[in-house]
């Protein structure tokens, strides 16, 4: 099952997505990137039905870039989120709704970091932390318990993802992690599951 998480810090947003592309019981790809860069400081994380995810995310991505070309300046994260939600809503009651769940994370020079939660019924909510997927059931409560606005440093991420390894029956071996701050989008180190770590250690010792 797919998993997305986003946490807003004092001057950054941290997002992570699992990196498995699956087709029924087979893992087709285990380094799949589910994040789409809408602009230099906006990321769209997209999970859901096969095909719909990529098509919808690329559609939003191209439209955000088109806006920039036409008007000379970029959409803010809030505007991009509302644009995305509007598109989801427009297609919701058509013959071809997009069955996707999204997290939109961005940094605005004026407003600071922002994280938006959107689901396939085109709900939109600005939230300090959010998650999608079965893993959300396990991780949201930890965030509820320990999150303090302005107090999330980022080292706590590994502990958050380790709870999935501990309790979640479906193995999510690795995650892509990125942070957005005023400098833009930064790739952080991939967080790997325990199995991967053990494999890595074995390979080194061989």
């Amino acid at each position, binding site marked *: 099952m797919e998993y997305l998480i986003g946490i807003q810090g004092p001057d950054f947003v941290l997002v992570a997505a699992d990196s498995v*592309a699956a*087709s029924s*019981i*087979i893992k*087709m*790809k285990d380094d*799949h990137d589910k994040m789409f860069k809408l602009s230099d400081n906006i990321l769209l994380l997209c999970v859901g*039905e*096969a*095909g*719909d995810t*990529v*098509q919808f995310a690329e559609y939003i991505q191209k439209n955000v870039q088109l806006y920039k070309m036409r008007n000379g300046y970029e959409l803010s994260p809030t505007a991009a989120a509302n644009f995305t939600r509007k598109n989801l809503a427009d297609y919701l009651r058509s013959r*071809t709704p997009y069955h996707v769940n999204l997290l939109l994370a961005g940094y605005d020079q004026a407003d600071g970091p922002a994280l938006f939660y959107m689901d396939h019924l085109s709900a939109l909510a600005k939230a300090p932390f959010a998650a999608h997927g079965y893993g959300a059931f396990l991780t949201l409560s930890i965030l509820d318990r320990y999150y303090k606005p302005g107090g999330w440093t980022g080292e706590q991420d590994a502990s958050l993802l380790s709870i999935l390894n501990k309790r979640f029956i479906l193995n999510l071996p690795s995650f892509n992690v990125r942070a957005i701050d005023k400098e833009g989008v930064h790739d952080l180190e991939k967080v790997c599951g325990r199995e991967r770590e053990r494999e890595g250690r074995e390979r080194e010792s061989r």
Partner: protein
Amino acid sequence: MSLFIFVGEYISALNHIFIDCIECIKHYFNCAVHKVSQIGGAVIFCLHHQTIYCKPKKSIERLLVSKMALASVLGSDYADFSFDTDKSYAFGSGLAAEPTSIDNLSFAIKGALGSAEQDDVEKKIEFLHGTTTLAFKFDHGVIVAVDSRATAGAYIASQTVKKVIEINPYLLGTMAGGAADCSFWERLLARQCRVYELRNKERISVAAASKLLANMVYQYKGMGLSMGTMVCGWDKRGPGLYYVDSEGNRVCGDLFAVGSGSMYAYGVIDSGLRQDMSVEDACELGRRAIYQATYRDAYSGGQVNLYHVHGEGWTRVSQDDVLLLHHKYQEKL
């Protein structure tokens, strides 16, 4: 070539007909179907071309169904062929003009034909991806290996199906799912690739070709296309391998196996694959993986067709019968 027309539950007359050519079928089909169109639907097996034509009650169009798997036609989970043993149906038999009553030959389809009066939504046809195809990248290019069996339910319709489609001299596509869907859309892709080449004076990249296919097929999502294909080629970025399916998936990767025997193939490939293998070793790995899949999976078999894609394009490496491979590997043990 022989053509049998079986008509469903409500129909009163059954015929065995011998037809000379496909043009005659089309003509005959229209006449025959018109006769029965008031009463029910028809399913036609053309054994020569190994295709199944299905005409549901309401629509006039023929729906060309897979030649690799007999689907749950018109919503049923299986088609139950119960033949009266007295009635012989011989391939290539002469014109048997005696009409048979429904008692002798019953073609019972669970879920009555034409009972669902839906406006234009035809019932979803589920295809069984009865095949094993695989492709993997390594240092010297891409190896593509496929089996060659086509099944219609539990019946093996053919052991000599070509499941690798040659899109152009440097791009290959594999076939899993509906054969008509795969070959049609990949042929259309070949046309688009050629247009790209003419417009841009440059070969199309594998990524772009697979994206073209994915976008074309996405428009028909949910309408019953069944296609699980791998687009393999070599472009200026090196070897390229993409998996594209009718659900809308498009994934780039180093190794894919598609079909009912894919899991068996994954096991063999995953344990034996090294990026620095020689070409012969890689070919042998692909061959072995398909053989192992055909050994375990009932819906895969026939021959192993092997292709190698390298800088100069693709080469057809070998075609080996699975039974001979079986003896060869047994001797080695």
